[in-house]
């Protein structure tokens, strides 16, 4: 549940549509609030105004003529109007249609007279009152808005006066509007949430289509296309554009491949001819010196072609078309073969060679390419490790379940800042200029690693008097350990 929620929150469209829904709810709330303010609340202000006017009239009457006319006036108004009143002096209630006893507020609360304070202070009061002895429910707990204060005879209050209105009807209307506002906002919120969930789900599904497509294309399946619904909406148009783009890319790749093949054919044929001519001339010429020159010219031509070949190979690997040929293989026999192939050559050059290769692992690889990559690494190590040096071929599962093939030597190594550059095409680090090679060996390994989605890392090897050494590692992330199969036949052979 929490996870789905987290996932939802990561969904951009869900966040956006939720934000939209929230903004809508807020603006709805504000505009309804304005309606409330303009209608219900304005009614209340009207009531307040009329009360204040009445109080001011009564006060004026008191100042001009005293308490008796005020009392008379109030009695007149009780009989004719809708107002609620009471007038009380120290001797008792003079007039009124509101029993102080039926009000849910005390006199102190109502009038709050502070002795010694000057001037009448009328204050707005809100309270409920119940008509005495009434069984009609409608006459109980009715809302009243009133102004209460003192009629002042000099510094001393002479009478308490209260003028109010029954605002029950207005209050009820106001409450209804308030509730309506809250309810409609909540409904909008829920609907907004549902719609953003729906929209994001729908959108996420289509975005997922695109993501899946991108993953497939990156994996080398260039023939995949985005599904279209021909609605011509933005996503459908995006799909159309993407598909057109992929078509274009595909055409370009085909063109490059074709160009590559044609160049290979067009350039290799004359170069092969050159080779053949040089060789045949070398064999025909009697003069031994001239013949040797021709042979070495032929060798140069062959070297040139080999370099050209490697460049083509790297480009073709880069296109990823061979990725479909990868299969689950056990790397052990492949690596054992390489070890077996190079061990004598190492010994011959005065290098000690050892290999440790873990059994019972499956990785997704192509035998030929894997052999070539590891062979390049071993040859590289042989080339740069001085006499009496050591080379180690080690393969096995490392932390995190990755399968790592490492060729480690104790030669001079490559300094940290040059390691990345060493993997680029035609890059030969300065100190190695004198040794033969085209600078394509590690680039080819890098291309092969890339095709396998493996990481190719160059790092410090074994420290020795020659330098810090080099460890070249190919790390395959998706390796599977398999249980060793106990086989009677192999047991016998081992035994």
């Amino acid at each position, binding site marked *: 549940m929490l996870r789905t929620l987290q996932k939802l929150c990561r969904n951009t469209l869900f966040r956006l549509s939720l934000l939209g829904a929230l903004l809508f709810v807020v603006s709805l709330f504000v505009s309804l609030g304005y309606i409330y303010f303009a209608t219900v609340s304005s009614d209340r202000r009207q009531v307040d105004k009329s009360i204040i006017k009445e109080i001011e009239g009564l006060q004026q009457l008191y100042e001009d003529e005293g308490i008796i006319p005020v009392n008379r006036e109030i009695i007149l108004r009780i009989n004719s109007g809708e107002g609620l009143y009471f007038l009380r002096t120290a001797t008792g209630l003079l007039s009124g249609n509101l029993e102080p006893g039926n009000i849910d507020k005390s006199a102190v609360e109502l009038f709050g007279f502070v002795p010694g304070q000057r001037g009448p202070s009328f204050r707005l009061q809100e309270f409920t009152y119940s008509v005495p002895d009434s069984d009609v429910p409608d006459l109980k707990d009715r809302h009243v808005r009133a102004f209460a204060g003192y009629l002042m005879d000099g510094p001393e209050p002479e009478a308490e006066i209260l003028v109010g209105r029954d605002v029950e009807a207005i209050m009820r209307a106001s409450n209804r509007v308030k509730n309506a506002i809250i309810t409609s906002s909540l409904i909008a919120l829920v609907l907004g949430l549902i719609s953003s969930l729906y929209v994001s789900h729908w959108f996420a599904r289509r975005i997922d289509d695109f993501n899946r497509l991108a993953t497939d294309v990156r994996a080398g399946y260039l023939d995949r296309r985005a599904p279209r619904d021909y609605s011509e909406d933005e996503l459908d148009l995006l799909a159309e554009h993407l598909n057109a783009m992929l078509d274009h890319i595909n055409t370009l790749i085909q063109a490059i491949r074709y160009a590559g*093949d044609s160049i*290979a*054919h067009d350039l*290799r*044929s004359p*170069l*092969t*001819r050159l*080779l*053949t*001519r040089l*060789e*045949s001339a070398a*064999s025909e010429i009697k003069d031994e010196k001239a013949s040797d020159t021709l*042979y070495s010219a*032929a060798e140069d*031509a*062959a070297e040139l*072609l*080999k370099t050209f*070949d490697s460049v083509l*190979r790297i480009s*073709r690997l880069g296109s990823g078309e*061979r990725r479909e*040929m990868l299969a689950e293989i056990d790397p052990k026999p492949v690596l054992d*073969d390489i070890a*077996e*192939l*190079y061990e*004598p*050559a190492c*010994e*011959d050059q005065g290098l000690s060679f050892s290999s440790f290769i873990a059994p019972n692992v499956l990785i997704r690889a192509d035998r*030929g390419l894997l*052999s*070539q990559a590891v*062979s390049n690494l071993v*040859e590289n190590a*042989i*080339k740069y490790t001085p006499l009496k040096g050591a080379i180690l071929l080690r393969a096995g599962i490392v932390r995190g379940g990755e399968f790592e093939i490492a060729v480690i030597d104790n030669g001079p190594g490559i300094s940290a800042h040059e390691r990345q550059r060493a993997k680029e095409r035609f890059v030969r680090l300065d100190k190695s200029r004198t040794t*033969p*090679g085209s600078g394509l*060996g590690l680039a080819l390994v890098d291309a092969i690693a890339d095709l396998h989605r493996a990481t190719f890392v160059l790092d410090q090897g074994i420290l020795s008097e020659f330098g810090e050494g080099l460890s070249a590692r190919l790390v395959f992330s998706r390796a599977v350990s398999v249980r060793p199969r106990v086989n009677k036949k192999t047991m016998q052979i081992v035994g």
Partner: protein
Amino acid sequence: MRILIVEDDEITAEYVRKGLMEAGHVVDLAGDGDIGLEMARTADYDALVLDRMMPKMDGIELLTELRNDGDKTPVLILSAMGEVDQKVQGLRAGGDDYLAKPYSFTELLARVEAIGRRGYPTATVTKLKVGDLKMDLLARTVNREGRNILLQQREFRLLECLMRNAGQVMTRKMLLEKVWDYHFDPQTNVIDVHISRLRSKIDKEFKTPMLHTVHGVGYRLQA
């Protein structure tokens, strides 16, 4: 041997022909696939050398046609496209060997002679014999002049390959392909080291050496 070369590049074809003739073979040339197929159907050749990329009919098409006719003449495919999968495609179509351009003529010669001499695959052999060197493929034993020679597995396969092509020059590339199944060129002299180890076992203690180095080309086992 009578050899047919089907190659659209005249100059290459002419040089290959000249070289093969100097080596003692009878050579015919065909300039494109149509003519090549016609010639291969009418005359009896010991080996065909097919260029893969040609106008009209390409090498693979020609080969497929030929094999559909039931013609089993050994075929060497030449191509500017040296990728392993294309090699596989060529071999699957019925080619007996595949050589990527650029090749040296000596490599081509060695391969043409190897496939031409091999002839039709005979019944499975269990014993090989070259001079006084004998190999039992079932018991996996080797002896020379009656003396047992202990070989490691790979040395055994290397010797087997040389014995099957006895008298024949095997280039380093051919050995690497046939014995190790590697289709790339190692920079170092790996094959030479393996050969010298094998040589120390089969030749060292005997009067006449059998494993000869053919300078600049490869190795030959000969009685």
